[in-house]
């Protein structure tokens, strides 16, 4: 019975592959010959494939849940003792399952595109669908012929090998899925951009149609990156959340170019400028998601994410080359469609500030790209193996990051075309003042431990917050004066009647709060490693940690948990107890560290049990005090909330809203 299920999975993928082949063919021929029926049949095929791939995914989930160890994938990533939730998450623990997840997300997206895009720009849908299905064809080819999750063994093992204990963390449930939702999502704006070019549409219709897609995709990628960082922080036990690991870089690069894209499309919408640039950006972003999948899935780079060598690499490289050449061909072939409608008029304008923002984001992406692939280039061309370490990335990206924060304050408020002195004074004088006061205060507060990077990061962050607060208060006051509404009503109406602007502000606030957390935790972290007896204390940064003993516990699936009890005090006050542990898992040599973290707005006290000796009554702890880490996570929540707020359908605008907008001297945008 169960073997039949694995076969069912294989057959389903097989059918999906050939249906997709037909769909691509039917779209191309149908579009070329203007055969409406053929295009309609292709659209039906998209639904069919989405159904088939969903079915294959359901079969894999079923096999994982029942623990059919005759299936290689199930035997490799699960065992009997594994909690149910992690059995499901084993879906994407390995290569074949990850490819299936990619395909599943892509075909569901393609289904939504094919069936739910109505109204203006409808003629692009068959083109976009064909492109999405062609991308899907590649993944289905891999799943059917190269790396199938339904491969079976010729015997049935008594138990599986189990899931790597490092992957048994709630992060495993969220990080891979959101990252893939983000990665794959960029295929949609890419497909529409190429469709617009093929149809010689010079307008912003493809941007308008994909604005929500792009924002939501970008949000998922952001969540994926942040949860990856948090997972590393709580699980890997080295006390940090970002290591410039190639796999991390792989997700950061499309995020950077995608962020650039989100901003530069506004210039095209309002001014008809940067058209070539926008198409290039969305192509670049999509190609970087494929490149990122290539990096993580091919095992070509040594990395903490150790995925192991596989034959997949060449396929990905070939596909990447094909998509790159195809994109370039379409871009150059249709260059005349993308003529610019306006010129840059002044260096002090919204257009210029957005251009600078874009250059910095893409420059950052390029620096990350260079640092990530240089070891490959060096090994291939010179036969010399090298590694590029964190100082390179920090040196380039910290200054870029600080400039970007400053722009975050300037871009939304600087005037179009040419900014007057009056515009600059009105919007930026007070925030500059607040910034200087805060920087002076901080310089005094941190005088023993002054760091230029920290000072600039906090100064620029303050500037952004002040610009936002000032603008919101001003608009609110105007609204109240014009409409006579009460404070709460006025605020609510103002925010919800211009979701794009205020959602953007919320995202900016989130990013700035994250920057505050990143600067604090990367510059002012301290650590100490010490061996203590029961009753002895470790002092660090005003915290006192008292070791009170070891408990031996047993919490399945671990065989044994060695748990240390550490009471944390600050200024003589007892804050709580932390219980760092080492867990012994079956199938794992040596124990696995489980970090304990006592988190507050000011500091994370991060405690690792490094060793213990019950006979001597001693235990060794590595303790880190990481300032402001909580801000990083809190900022990320704001970023998500802001994006959701911005994409939420906007209510009807009333005459009063227009009047208010006029009164603040703003268009209706």
């Amino acid at each position, binding site marked *: 019975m169960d073997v039949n299920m694995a076969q069912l999975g294989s057959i389903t993928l097989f059918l999906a592959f050939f249906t997709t082949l037909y769909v691509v063919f039917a779209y191309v021929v149908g579009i070329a010959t203007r055969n409406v029926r053929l295009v309609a049949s292709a659209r039906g095929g998209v639904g069919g494939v989405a159904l088939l791939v969903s079915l294959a995914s359901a079969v894999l989930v079923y096999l994982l849940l029942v623990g059919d160890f005759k299936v290689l994938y199930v035997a490799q990533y699960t065992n009997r003792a594994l909690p149910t939730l992690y059995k499901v998450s084993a879906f994407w623990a390995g290569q074949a399952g990850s490819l299936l997840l990619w395909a599943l997300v892509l075909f569901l997206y393609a289904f939504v595109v094919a069936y739910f895009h109505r109204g203006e720009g409808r003629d692009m849908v068959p083109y976009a669908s064909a492109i999405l299905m062609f991308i899907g064809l590649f993944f289905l080819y891999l799943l059917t012929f190269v*790396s199938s999750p339904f491969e079976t063994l010729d015997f049935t093992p008594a138990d599986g090998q189990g899931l790597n204990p490092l992957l048994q963390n709630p992060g495993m449930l969220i990080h891979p899925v959101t990252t893939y939702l983000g990665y794959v999502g960029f295929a949609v704006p890419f497909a529409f951009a190429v469709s617009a070019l093929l149809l010689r549409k010079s307008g912003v219709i493809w941007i308008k149609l994909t604005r929500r897609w792009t924002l939501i995709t970008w949000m998922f990628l952001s969540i994926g990156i942040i949860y990856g960082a948090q997972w590393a922080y709580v699980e890997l036990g080295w006390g940090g959340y970002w290591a410039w690991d190639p796999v991390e870089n792989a997700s950061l690069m499309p995020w950077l170019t995608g962020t650039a894209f989100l901003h530069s499309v506004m210039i095209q919408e309002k001014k008809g400028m940067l058209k070539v640039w926008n198409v290039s950006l969305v192509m670049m972003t999509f190609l970087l998601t494929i490149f990122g999948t290539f990096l993580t899935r091919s095992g070509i780079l040594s990395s903490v994410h150790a995925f192991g060598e596989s034959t997949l690499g060449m396929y990905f490289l070939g596909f990447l080359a094909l998509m790159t050449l195809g994109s370039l061909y379409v871009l150059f072939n249709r260059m005349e469609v993308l003529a610019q409608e306006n010129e840059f008029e002044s260096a002090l304008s919204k257009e210029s500030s957005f251009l600078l923002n874009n250059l910095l984001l893409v420059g950052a992406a390029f620096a990350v790209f260079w640092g990530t692939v240089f070891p490959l280039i060096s090994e291939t061309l010179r036969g010399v193996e090298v590694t590029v370490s964190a100082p*390179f990335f920090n040196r380039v990206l910290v200054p870029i990051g600080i400039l970007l924060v400053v722009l975050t304050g300037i871009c939304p408020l600087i005037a179009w075309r040419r900014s007057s002195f009056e515009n600059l004074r009105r919007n930026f004088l007070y925030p500059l003042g607040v910034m200087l006061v805060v920087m002076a205060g901080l310089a005094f507060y941190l005088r023993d431990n002054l760091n230029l990077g920290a000072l600039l990061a906090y100064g620029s962050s303050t500037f952004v917050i002040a610009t936002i607060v000032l603008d919101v208060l001003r608009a609110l006051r105007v609204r109240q004066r014009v409409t006579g509404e009460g404070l709460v009503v006025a605020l609510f109406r103002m925010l919800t009647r211009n979701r794009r602007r205020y959602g953007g502000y919320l995202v900016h606030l989130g990013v700035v709060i994250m920057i505050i957390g990143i600067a604090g935790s990367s510059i002012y972290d301290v650590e100490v490693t010490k*061996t203590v007896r029961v009753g002895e204390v470790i002092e660090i940064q005003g915290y006192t940690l008292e070791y009170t003993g070891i408990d031996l516990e047993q919490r399945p699936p671990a065989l044994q948990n060695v748990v240390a009890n550490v009471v944390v005090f600050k200024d003589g006050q007892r804050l709580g107890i932390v219980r760092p542990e080492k867990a012994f898992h079956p199938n794992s040599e040596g124990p696995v560290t489980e970090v304990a973290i006592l988190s507050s707005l000011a500091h994370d006290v991060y405690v690792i049990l490094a060793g213990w000796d019950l006979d001597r009554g001693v235990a060794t702890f590595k303790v880190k005090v990481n300032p402001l880490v909580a801000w990083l996570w809190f900022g990320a929540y704001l970023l998500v909330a802001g994006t959701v707020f911005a994409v939420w359908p906007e209510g009807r605008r009333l005459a009063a809203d227009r009047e208010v907008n006029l009164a603040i001297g703003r268009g209706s945008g």
Partner: protein
Amino acid sequence: MKKSWKVTIAVVLVLGAIAYLGYTGFESATVYYLTVDELFERGSAAVGAQLRVRGVVVGDSINWDDQSILLTFDLQGEQALLPVRYEGIIPDNFVDGTEVTVGGYLTPEGVFVADELILSCPSKYEPEVEGEGS
């Protein structure tokens, strides 16, 4: 025409600044990544330079002193054996046969003083897709 020149100059300046940052930071952050054997081939020429070296941990050689928080162990190459000193705690999965990368420098006495210790892979969980089960 004049206006687009201004913009072009600004673009070149920004890109130039980023390239300058990258160029000046690159040399110092790029370190050789050697195997234990390659390190020994370089001999005394390798002494003192920042390097990363990878090899396989020899289980019997692992010694950790919890008072001085000092971890010493030998890294095995194909032929050569490299003694390593690392001030820090024992990472997870650090057992006989684990492939690790150490970052640091070689002393004239032939001991590698590491300030970073990275585990390449928890080998148990590698998806040895090809050939497994046969």
